[in-house]
């Protein structure tokens, strides 16, 4: 299955992936209109430490702890992708605590969580963070 991988060697720490991720979540067609004056809640986040940068998002683990810990069944595995049903999420944040990668975060309204679902809803075939990474540091590959 194809997953998002980040090659630290080429990650520039520009944080563009975060903004494209946040933009994708809106229903707007223009990023400036969508994001200007707003705090963003991306599902990918770039960790910086000096010259080291690394974008982190959901690994779509084969045996995800988040799914095991979810008390409402809001998280599930569908075709290898860890999916979230926000309608069923009650915002207990158990998954946030159990994810070893810190890839799940509270959603903007604070009452539910949000996580990367590989932009399945955009129908573009490739996640926006991958498409818009200026240095091809974020890739969408099947590594078995």
């Amino acid at each position, binding site marked *: 299955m194809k997953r998002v991988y980040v090659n630290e060697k*080429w990650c*520039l720490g520009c944080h563009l992936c975060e*903004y494209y991720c946040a933009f994708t979540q809106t229903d707007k067609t223009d990023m*400036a209109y969508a*994001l*200007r004056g707003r705090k963003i809640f991306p599902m990918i986040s770039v960790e910086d430490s000096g010259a080291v940068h690394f974008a982190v998002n959901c690994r779509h683990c084969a045996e995800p702890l988040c799914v095991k810990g979810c008390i409402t069944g809001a998280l599930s595995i569908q075709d290898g992708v860890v999916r979230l049903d926000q309608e069923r999420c009650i915002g207990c944040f158990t998954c946030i605590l159990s994810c070893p990668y810190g890839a799940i975060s509270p959603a903007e309204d604070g009452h539910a969580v949000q996580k990367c679902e590989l932009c399945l809803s955009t129908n573009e075939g490739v996640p926006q963070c991958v498409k818009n990474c200026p*240095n091809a540091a974020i890739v969408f590959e099947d590594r078995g």
Partner: protein
Amino acid sequence: MAAFDFYPDYEVVRNLDRCIVCRVCERQCANGVHSCLEEKNVMLADDSQCVDCQRCVLLCPTRALKIVKSDNTYKQNDNWGKKAINELIIQASTGSVLLSSMGNPETYPIYFDKLVINASQVTNPSIDPLREPMETRVYLGAKPAAVERDDRGRIKNNLPPQLKLSMPMMFSAMSYGSISYNAHESLARAAAELGIYYNTGEGGLHEDFYRYGANTIVQVASGRFGVHKDYLNAGSAIEIKMGQGAKPGIGGHLPGRKIVADVSRTRMTPEGADAISPAPHHDIYSIEDLSQLVYSLKEATEYKKPVIVKIAAVHNVAAIASGIARSGADIISIDGFRGGTGAAPTRIRDNVGIPIELALASVDSRLRNEGIRDRVSVVVSGGIRSSADVVKAIALGADCVYLGTAALLALGCHLCRACQAGKCNWGIATQELELVKRLNPDIGYKRLINLMRAWKHEIEEMMGGMGINSIESLKGNRLMLRGVGLNEKELEVLGVKHAGQ
């Protein structure tokens, strides 16, 4: 004195209606132009630091940025232009020689733009490159005077070593040190995949790149940086750099801050110390000395590699080229005054040397007049901007062209001409790891391949239009060119007729 020397030449224009304060511009500017006033959640810019490299403009996800030429103006003076005044002011402040980079940007004539290409009509069919073979293969190297046969009368291959290229274009000398590891990797991998050559420049060859040796030309310059026996034998040809179009008559200067560990090891010079190549080769003070170096290098490589001698296009270029052709060199490379550099004194870059079109035409004519054009191949560089320039150069008489600036543009360069600062925001002319990583060779080499393939297609289209299906029939075929708006003397030097003739 005033608070600052002069108003910045370029201004950062930020469209606040579009800025989302993502701070990409701030993170991507190595010159510290952009900053964020966090309490107001607004971005600021210090125009005085901007080199107009376009990095922030192109990475801004909402297209909120542009750089414009300042309209601040001095009192109109057709003699003392803004550039002259500002440069003088800098020198009055610093007492320094002005430094700049890349090729001569001044308003000299561009002869390529005054030459037009022929096409077939009626009397001779044009050839469709999509339907017929269109050949761009080129061999570089000396041709022997006579054909030899074996006892059975079969022709013997008595050719000295040759370079075989799939198209008449190579990547010109750019040293590791002046440009980054990733830039070199991109050039090497692209050359290998394209079946052409790239040139190491004068900084030696990084050990990781020995595996691209079959597509590498190793350079020997006056500083002899990184030159040793294995290096000479690592490439497919050796280039002796006598001069460079951007700075004829002077040597090179790689600032110590670009001599980081790997560069130092490759160059065999101390880390952090400026690497200065002398103006002349101190073992070459005349043409016979050059011949000795040519043969020393051939001895060192057992006569298995062609030797290229690279010179800058200067006034006496035809006579010098003639001397080189008789020195044992296999290939002459001529670099015109538009040729790029990682650093050169501004006055030299902008005032020394001649246009490559005129230099090429006069060298080719001179070598033919002396009957020695077959003894050497001629490679030209310094101002090749498109496939049309390539076609024109070959029609004027070149065997092949070297591309430097064009290759860098493919890798992301936007000609801000601040390479000497070592803070290239595109990861090309820098050794700062944080910047170097901005050039991902996986992307870079593909862009170089795209560019070369695109140019090759265009060359084939133009050749087909002329009814020529093999590049050798274009070489020196000056009837395929006409001048537009050139005077008699220019036409005479170029050896072409005026349009309409």
